[in-house]
């Protein structure tokens, strides 16, 4: 019987942890309550690989403990923003243990919105309103500052005009017709990296980025803004974000192009002038880009 040889095998990377740790955090200021519901994925990389190599578990911090750490830190430090909480978890793990070399924490926030009527906020009732999802990711090596990304995803927007697509490359297999006026629908995914992690108002930065994306997409409310392509709108959004939010160093945006096609009703004797459209979710176009600030020399 052949024995497995480990001599021609080497590690590329290892990591382990707990996924989908969920908590609802309530902060009470008198009768006015604040909530944050989040889902956390925490991954650790240890100094030694003996757990993988020999089955020696003495270094392994159980994933159950990792879950407990998330719970305990929510209680002890509270959750003001998911970014700060992620950094708290990361910092705790790297400082409480001497043999963890790297931590990765991903957190997603549930989109609860406080009920409000005529400008009056409800003290403690919320409604689930998934018009956009907020998430963040912290990656930190031992003895280094954390690298923090925040993001927004599943923000679906649509506009019925001020979008076109012309002048594209044509070849033998191109059948697409040029369009001067089409619907533009996309589900925005944006992820950005911060160049500083202390003294940053993460809520305000996240809102700025989200609003900038919407602003660039929609344009002025009375007449909109023409988009010659998803690529152009995407790039313009990125430049605007970098301009407005100095803490953002780099931003990636992915915009799928969810198509709506005019339904041909001529066979029914009807002329459909782009009034009744067919939403076709697959296949969908997918456009992405990442830009960062040019490295600036420091005075």
């Amino acid at each position, binding site marked *: 019987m052949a024995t497995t040889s480990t001599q021609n095998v080497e590690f590329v990377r290892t990591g382990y942890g707990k996924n989908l740790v969920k908590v609802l955090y309530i902060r009470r200021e008198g009768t006015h309550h604040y909530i944050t519901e989040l889902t956390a994925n925490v991954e650790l990389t240890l100094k030694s690989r003996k757990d993988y190599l020999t089955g020696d578990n003495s270094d392994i911090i159980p994933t159950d403990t990792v879950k407990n750490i998330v719970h305990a830190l929510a209680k002890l*430090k509270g959750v003001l923003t998911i970014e700060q909480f992620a950094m708290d978890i990361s*910092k705790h793990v790297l*400082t409480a243990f001497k043999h963890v070399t790297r931590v990765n924490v991903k957190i997603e926030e549930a989109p609860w919105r406080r009920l409000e009527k005529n400008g009056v906020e409800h003290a403690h009732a919320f409604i689930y309103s998934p018009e956009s999802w907020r998430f963040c990711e912290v990656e930190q090596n031992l003895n280094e500052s954390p690298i923090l990304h925040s993001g927004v995803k599943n923000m679906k927007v649509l506009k019925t005009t001020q979008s076109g697509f012309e002048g594209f490359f044509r070849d033998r297999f191109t059948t697409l017709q040029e369009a001067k006026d089409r619907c533009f629908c996309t589900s925005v995914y944006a992820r950005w990296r911060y160049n500083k992690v*202390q003294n940053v*108002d993460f809520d305000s930065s996240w809102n700025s980025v989200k609003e900038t994306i919407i602003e660039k997409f929609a344009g002025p409310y009375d007449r909109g803004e023409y988009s010659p392509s998803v690529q152009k709108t995407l790039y313009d959004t990125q430049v605007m974000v970098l301009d407005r939010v100095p803490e953002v160093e780099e931003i990636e945006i992915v915009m799928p192009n969810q198509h709506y096609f005019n339904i041909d009703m001529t066979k029914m004797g009807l002329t459909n002038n782009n009034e009744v459209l067919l939403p076709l979710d697959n296949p969908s176009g997918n456009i992405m880009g990442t830009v960062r600030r040019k490295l600036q*020399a420091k005075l």
Partner: protein
Amino acid sequence: MVLKELPGKKASSEGNPLLTVTTKLVGEQQESRPLLSPSIDDFLSESRIDGPVVRPVTSNTAVLSSALDLVDLSEPSERGSCSRKRSSSAHTPRAPESVSLDSGIDCTMCVFGLRGGGRNQFQHLFCSPQSDTEFWDKMQAEWEELARRNWLEEENDGPIPLSISPIEKGYYFHTNNPYKECPNAFEEGQQKARDGDLNNAVLLLEAAILQDPSDSEAWQVLGTTQAENENEQAAIVSLQRCLDLHHNNLPALMALAVSLTNTGMQQDACEALHRWICHNPRYKHLLPGSRSPSQLAEVKGLYQEAALLNTDGVDPDLQTGLGVLFNLSSEFDKAVEAFNSALSVRPEDYLLWNRLGATLANGDHSEEAVEAYTRALKLQPGFIRSRYNLGISCINLGAHKEAASNFLTALNQQRQSQSHQVMSANIWAALRIALSMMDRPELFQAANLGDLDRLMKAFEMGRVM
């Protein structure tokens, strides 16, 4: 309140039980130290910008306790109406009564400035090896005071000073500062800074501040040193602290303006430069009576007017301000002129050479920038910021290997610290960019893991001792 469970005023002859526990832990320490339940309290709370801060001792030198966090969620009614403690305790200098605790126990501290209608209070939480009972009494008192602070409180009375957000800021001091008790820490720190030993300079200056947090000059020098050390956030916080204590400190205002310019805070930088003129005896008469606006164009005009006054000689500091303003308005040629003018008076000033270089670089003159940086580094080889800038220019010129070498040199210099220094995140980020352009994926991966030794080996850089 959980605080009551903590070891309080115990004058026990066996010493403080918590200390006993931790000394025991030190003995039992293995490579993989399990997280024991007492150390559920062990949280490094100094990073909590919104939370109270606490500094008891633990066996893990990097981990600090914040039992205080347990009371964060108290109802407002529970908090009572305790007046905020005046900073009187903060200003008593630390007498180095040295009852040294066991090895392996260490502390750090964080000085918080609390916004309060312009009043500035330093909550001075300080761990020093005093006698056990004194130490714990002090801790207990500090904890109880801080427990009453609600981390949601926003203090917006009074004009908001430069770049202060309602979120609290703090300076993050080093743990294990070997110079904590050093008698003339400030002078030595200043000297080290001049010598280019930025690591030790920072530690000494921090020690001086721990001994006397109201020493505005120490904060000022710490600020400028951290900027040279490519640690902009620390520089900004330090300089702001200095200005809180001494609002018309001209060098601090200028240095702050530079740092704010670097971080893209244009409006705040203009305000700092405006204040520099306001408080400058030579030029303050130029200001119109009423509070003049501090928009970029107006402030530039002011500085240009001021420059015209100097018929018999260039004021290098004024020219520096002009250089910064022209950088803000992207008029790089004029900025270069201003810095050159300043350099004509102070040709040995390495900061000016770096500023000239950075201006040239940001104006797309990378080759000339390299020359300027080289001059700066010749005058001051330990000038981390200039080496970082040099690396960036190398990238812009396509010399990725040289760029990486420069970044590695800087990181290695930062690493050679007696206390555990964290290396500049900027420099790591720039290094990763340089490596990504080199088509050496294994090196890029090493950079992602923070493996400085491996990278230095790859670039044939021996460990510089």
